[in-house]
């Protein structure tokens, strides 16, 4: 907890009722932090050490579990696969959603009402409905088992929200700036690149983080569309490790921490953007 924040909130409200509330919040926070702490600590100890005294600090600290997962169970490869699929998906989403978002926010698109309505209504489609038809379609296109199919699905399922989100955030850019650039002779792509992208950068960053988290954490399509074990993404790989090693808690814990590490890092360093994205969802 940073010093200055404590000082500031102290100044704002210094009533005596603060302490019980603070402690209650602390207890709730502990129910979230403790399980994670337990997983992290457990992942750094051998199984025998864990079974001896699960709640104490490890008698032996070791990276064995991590090395084991990387060398024997291909978790390193799965990590890279997830990183690859997530990055490509997010990049495509950002490009397509920026184009569509700019047009819907600032250009007179014919049939705009219907296009917006389509983007909004497909957001209501529950994932399970898509499983069978998507699988059959991609099988027909012969891209089941390749990342192309999976990325396509992530892009398609991410785009409606992304477009909606960017339309809203680009609307905040003043028309005068765009008008001025036009008068100076800037074309469509020039405006996108030198005005929309920099002025909408906060929205773009928020969106990138949210969509990356979505792709990184996704499970159903990653399971269904990538049957080949060597190509698996991280979440399905973790699921199969969790299933196989019921008796080895430290090993599974290491897998959990590896999978959770990227989202936790993003939350630590980009919480501003994540919380901003939340506001859009909350705003109404």
């Amino acid at each position: 907890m940073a010093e200055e924040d404590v000082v500031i909130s102290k100044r704002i409200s210094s009533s005596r009722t603060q302490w019980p509330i603070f402690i209650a919040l602390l207890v709730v926070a502990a129910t979230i932090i403790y399980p994670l702490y337990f997983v992290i600590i457990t992942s750094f100890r051998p199984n025998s050490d864990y079974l001896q005294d699960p709640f104490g600090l490890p008698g032996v600290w070791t990276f064995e579990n991590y090395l084991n997962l990387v060398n024997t169970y291909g978790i390193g490869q799965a990590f890279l696969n997830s990183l690859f699929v997530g990055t490509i998906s997010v990049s495509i989403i950002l490009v397509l959603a920026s184009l569509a978002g700019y047009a819907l926010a600032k250009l007179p698109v014919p049939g705009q009402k219907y296009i917006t309505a389509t983007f909004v209504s497909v957001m209501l489609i529950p994932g399970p409905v898509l499983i069978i038809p998507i699988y059959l379609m991609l099988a027909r296109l012969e891209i089941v088992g390749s990342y192309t199919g999976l990325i396509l699905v992530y892009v398609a399922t991410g785009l409606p929200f992304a477009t909606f989100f960017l339309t809203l955030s680009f609307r905040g850019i003043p028309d005068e700036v765009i008008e001025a650039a036009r008068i100076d002779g800037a074309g469509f792509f020039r405006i996108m690149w030198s005005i929309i992208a920099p002025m909408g950068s906060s929205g773009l960053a928020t969106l990138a983080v949210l969509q990356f988290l979505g792709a990184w954490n996704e499970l159903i399509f990653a399971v269904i569309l990538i049957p080949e074990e060597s190509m698996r993404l991280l979440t399905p790989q973790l699921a199969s490790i969790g299933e196989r090693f019921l008796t080895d808690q430290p090993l599974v814990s290491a897998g959990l921490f590896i999978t959770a590490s990227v989202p936790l890092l993003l939350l630590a360093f980009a919480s501003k953007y994540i919380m901003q994205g939340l506001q859009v969802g909350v705003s109404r």
Partner: protein
Amino acid sequence: MTTASVTSRVGAASAAPTGGAPRHKPGGIRRRDRIVGLLAVLPAFLVVVGFMAFPVAFAVFISFTKTNGLRFEFRGLDNYIALLNDPIVHQVFLNNVTFLISVPLVIFTALIVSVLLFERVRGWKYFRVIFFLPNVLSVAVIGIMFRNAFGYYGGVNQALALFGIEPIQFFTNGSTAIAIIILALVWAGFGYQSLLLLAGLTSINPAVFEAAAIDGAGWWKRLWYITLPNIRRVLGFVFIINVIYTFSSLFGFVYVMTAGGPGFDTTTIDYLVYLRAFSSTNLGSGAALAVILFLFIGILTLIQNRVFKLGEDD
């Protein structure tokens, strides 16, 4: 959490302004703008129509056929009739209804947390981030974490052992397995929802509170007579997204925690769609189940929108 967040986004969507950007420009430039605009929207639109809207139509078509994915034999409503008479479907639907127990639990927890956060005590912003933490984690991570914790060698049994209690096999019994999945749902969901409720609380006019405080209303009275009535709309919204989530998004938890077992005791509708799709010879049956689920959720969403429209008037 995808559905919950997606649905909440849709809640926001209804507020989206739909009007174009009226500008006064010569016809030629305007016409060019229309073409450029259309071209810019087109790629995203085509991907979404091709891989979200079309699949739904395709699912409806599949549901009227008997198919292995290659050959489609038209069978009319046979799949639907078979599903309605299928005891497994009945059981699975009841399972989903049982999972609804999580809804009041999540909302109650979220409500308490939001009221606590609303007091803005020191470091409340950090608490906010901590409570949001489960939301950035994959259901695979949360599910396996809970299955581990309640596993034979898991933390919970180890703790029980300290009191001399024999290890409990939580996952060989349907009711305890459901209870643990519900616990995982509450753990994963309350933080985000407390932030939703907090937003509702923040929009209450502070003057109302001050007036009540001056009139001598205590903390509890203010909570009951001012706070709760003022956020009933947000509460209703959170209630519906939870119900929708319970019916459409438990796949991840079930997949990693119980695989639907023992028997079909923890199988949910969305997990059954997956089972029917990949372990049966008739995909039509799975598609029909998915379509039923879609209709059910569609009705819930309509109700939600109705309630919202009504709520906005007062």
